[in-house]
């Protein structure tokens, strides 16, 4: 690999107020010979290498440590995997705007599957409402708080927006610590242990798809989804950024994302862009697809279309 990842000690995700204290400790400790021990200790977290520079064994130690920590914290067995990308797979997503009725089932299925904070509330999916004929794709001036008794409402259509998994992701370039990157299957991921919470990526994202934990995320233990991925839905820290990962914990295991499965109208499509027989390729080849803010050259792998 040509580009070496900087070993940035700011990447620690711990009590930020103890940061100075911590880095002083770090400096002190770095003078000592380090013993590799899988133990949920402060120093292990502190000296965790960048995810992409870890060996298989180092990753396993990290996963074991987090499983232990989370299982203790939530009082139940939590599994943390780091299933790698499947070779020959590039994920793509399709959303049929002529079917979506704006019911927000996807929003809450996502929250449950991906362990978003309930209070303060974080939603990875935002459903926007537009009046027919309105100048739309004007995301900033859309309505996301609509709340009628029933949807769809006459003369309106709805557009859910989430991370567009850009092939050319501006958020990745904005990150000063390389805490976010694009995986070989095209999923843009965040390592919450390297994110320093500067939120440059949020400013860089044209889709408003990244969300910040303003305080410690709050998830009732009985609602925590214990099937987690290191780069996805494992519990987050206060002060880190998070976003949709196409349900990396599900899709790398062959399953559809939770939002696809819950959608009552079947508006959501998912599959391998490199497989000509996939449903996403069918959409691209048979429907007039478009991507949001195409002029920004972000090359989203999230395709919108109108089937009728």
């Amino acid at each position, binding site marked *: 690999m040509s580009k070496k990842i900087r070993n940035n000690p700011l990447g620690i995700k711990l009590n930020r107020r103890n940061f100075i204290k911590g880095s002083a400790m770090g400096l002190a400790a770095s003078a000592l010979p380090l013993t590799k021990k899988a133990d949920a200790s402060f120093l292990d977290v502190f000296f965790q290498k960048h995810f992409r520079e870890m060996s298989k064994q180092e990753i396993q130690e990290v996963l074991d440590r987090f499983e232990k920590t989370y299982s203790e914290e939530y009082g139940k067995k939590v599994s943390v995997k780091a299933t790698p990308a499947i070779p020959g*797979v590039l994920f793509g997503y399709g959303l049929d705007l002529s079917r979506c009725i704006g019911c*927000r089932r996807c929003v809450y299925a996502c929250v449950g599957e991906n362990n978003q904070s309930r209070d303060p509330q974080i939603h990875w999916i935002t459903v926007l409402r537009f009046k027919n004929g309105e100048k739309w794709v004007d995301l900033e001036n859309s309505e*996301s708080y609509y709340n009628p008794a*029933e949807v769809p409402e006459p003369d309106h259509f709805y557009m859910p927006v989430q991370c567009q998994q850009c092939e050319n992701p501006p958020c990745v370039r904005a990150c000063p610590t390389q805490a976010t990157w694009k995986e070989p299957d095209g999923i843009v991921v965040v390592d919450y242990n390297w994110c320093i919470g500067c939120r440059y990526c949020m400013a860089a994202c044209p889709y408003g798809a990244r969300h910040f934990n303003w305080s410690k995320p709050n998830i009732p233990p009985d609602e925590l989804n214990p099937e987690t991925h290191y780069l996805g839905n494992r519990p987050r820290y206060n002060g880190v950024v998070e976003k949709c990962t196409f349900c990396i914990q599900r899709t790398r295991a062959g399953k559809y994302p939770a939002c696809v499965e819950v959608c*009552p109208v079947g508006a959501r499509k*998912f599959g391998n862009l490199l497989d000509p027989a996939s449903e996403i390729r*069918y959409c691209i080849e*048979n429907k007039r697809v478009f991507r949001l803010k195409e002029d920004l050259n972000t090359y989203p792998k999230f395709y919108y279309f109108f089937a009728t």
Partner: protein
Amino acid sequence: MRRGSAVLPIFILITWILVLPVIALDSGNTDHQDTSNNTDTVYKGGSQNPDIPDFFVPPPPFSEGIFPCSGCHKEMKPNKQRRKLEMFHQDIELKHAGPQQWCLDCHNADDRDKLHLIDGRLIDFKESYLLCGQCHGTNFRDWKAGVHGKRTGEWNGKKLYRLCVHCHNPHQPRFKPLAPKPPPVRPEDIK
């Protein structure tokens, strides 16, 4: 044997009493919008049409106790007259393709447990998509590709489809409106 119409209501009553407890065990689902995730009793589709690759669909979403239809209809003479149904099925109001279409265009007169295609071929309810596909070719083609309607399961493996009638009541096929889930909290309300 021919039954007079006065005997019929009594007959129905008796059938209900006798048949209902049995067929209730075979109960389905009244809610046409519920996209059942019940995968224990999937049927393999595509058996009659080489165009359609094998896939799985959940059982038809019948209301409780209605199937088998022959429970009542075996003993009844089919009535092909277009009319307002008054003795039974009063809840079915046909709002599909205007006045051209009537019950027996889809349901089979002589064996009520089957549907029939335009060419007279009988099909099971678990293959009702073949019926719908006759008139809705584009939707049917998209459905087979997984683009109209939905599939769950594995994007690279076994998939569970939904029948057209899981989402569209065949008698009033427009998708029924739903109550939305709550809107997000406004930023100013986040503590």
